């Protein structure tokens, strides 16, 4: 087998070689980038909008918080009907025909929205609170039909809810213990306690924010803030970031599909778009083997610009 040195010597036979200092070029590039980065960082800084907490949400928009929590308790929120990996809601997973990859790994992160987002935190917060303990007992002692009747009536009433002294008030009606449960949950949330209770896992350390993020994602408050920051899906979504910073512009090929029909309304848009982007990335990787794609550089004379000096030198 011939060595690389021999094969390069043959490959470049007849081509003029010129002095070149790889190390110097690399060091100059590192220094140049350092100067550029220092200037950009000093002049433009970087985005860092503080996170929303459950507490700040409950204080800023208590009606949205209570409406979301009621939907979680009723099992009617986005997370409650999400399907895998959070629960086994039938026909909720995104599919293309019989292909349903969302179901392949099953329910790996089980979430019971009523228990995990409302009832369990309230049980933890009920210590020493006889009123809340009684309301919880009443709710959990009722049959599911009765619970749903209370929740439906309360959900309807929340459409005309008002806020007085930080508490959510609805027109009088037969809501059972639900208003008491929600008032208590709102109180815990406003104090910041729910942020901690949603992370409770029986161990001391915690780095998994799945539960509080899912709860916030089910509400409208975070989405409204995101819309102001031009971050929603129809605004090119996660490709952008807060402020006027460039964001993840390299995700344009992914984000662009969400702006176009039929993907902007398709229920399985995420699955279809990820598969399209994976296919396009594979095409890019296999360009050397795909006729037409590998021939375009020969047809489009950009290479004449790239090797301008070379072609000028050889034509003279």
């Amino acid at each position: 087998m011939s060595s690389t040195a021999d094969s390069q010597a043959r490959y470049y036979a007849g081509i003029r070689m010129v002095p070149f200092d790889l190390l110097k070029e690399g060091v100059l590039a590192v220094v140049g980038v350092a100067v550029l980065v220092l200037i950009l960082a000093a002049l433009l800084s970087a985005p860092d909008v503080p996170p929303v907490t459950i507490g700040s949400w409950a204080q800023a928009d208590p009606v949205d918080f209570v409406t979301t929590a009621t939907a979680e308790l009723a099992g009617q929120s986005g997370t409650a009907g999400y399907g895998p990996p959070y629960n086994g809601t039938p026909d909720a997973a995104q599919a293309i025909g019989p292909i349903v990859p969302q179901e392949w790994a099953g329910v790996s992160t089980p979430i019971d929205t009523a228990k995990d987002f409302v009832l369990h935190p309230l049980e933890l917060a009920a210590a020493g609170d006889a009123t809340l303990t009684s309301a919880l007992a009443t709710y959990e002692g009722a049959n599911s039909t009765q619970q749903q009747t209370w929740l439906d009536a309360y959900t309807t009433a929340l459409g005309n809810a008002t806020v007085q002294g930080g508490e959510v008030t609805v027109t009088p009606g037969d809501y059972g213990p639900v208003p008491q449960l929600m008032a208590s949950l709102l109180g815990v949330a406003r104090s910041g306690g729910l942020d901690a209770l949603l992370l409770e896992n029986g161990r001391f350390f915690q780095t998994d924010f799945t539960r509080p993020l899912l709860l916030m994602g089910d509400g409208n408050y975070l989405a409204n803030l995101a819309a102001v920051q031009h971050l929603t899906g129809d605004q090119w979504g996660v490709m952008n970031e807060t402020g006027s910073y460039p964001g993840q512009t390299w995700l344009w090929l992914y984000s662009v599909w969400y702006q176009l029909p039929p993907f902007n309304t398709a229920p399985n848009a995420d699955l279809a778009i990820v598969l399209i982007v994976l296919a396009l990335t594979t095409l890019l990787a296999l360009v050397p083997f795909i006729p037409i794609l590998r021939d375009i550089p020969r047809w489009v004379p950009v290479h004449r610009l790239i090797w301008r000096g070379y072609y000028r030198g050889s034509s003279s």
Partner: protein
Amino acid sequence: MTESAQEPEVDRGNWTLALRRFLERRVPLVHLLPDRQPYFVGSWVYVFGVVAIAALIWIVATGIVLVFFGPQWWHVSNIGHFVNALHFWSVQIFFIFMVLHLWGQYFAASWRDGRAPTWLVGVIVFAISIVATFTGYVAQQNFDAQWIAINAKDAMNAVGVGAFFNVLNFGQMYGLHVLFFPIAVTTLVAVHVVLVRMRGVVKPIDPPGAETSEPARRSGPQASEGPVA
């Protein structure tokens, strides 16, 4: 015992010797650290890849500082915020020049003459860099991280990887961002560079054939200098 007497005994089945000989044959130092290049390499297009690597060096350097002081530091410290800004803009420059490099190499059809593996590794670097940066965005612990994670989970779950790659799990995303992806990207970039050095830079498309008669590997001060764009 003399070396010549010992050599035949270790020659057969010696993995270390085989690897050394392979590297000496396929990745000679003269090509890893060249002091001469074909004159057509004097084009700005070849700078893009070098600048991208330079930006990657700063991404890693600033990332090490951020990791050292912990994920909360840059939110509460002016110096930390500045280091994060250096990290942020290094990433932006890395991607700008990586994309310029990619398109430059596409229009140069740089996969020709047996260089398809180099192109393939380059595309993999590009794809993994996108995921690496994505994990950085969702591990920021700010509003952007919350919103991006909440929305991105749908794509991950839809294709079935959400069970293993939970973007709502800060610990998982942070760990992947500061350990797995830096190792993956820098290793693949190193492989990409070694492949470039092993094969050399591809010749221009449709070479006219009327080249100079300089020997291909002539070295020394007497070598003529060609036009450098």
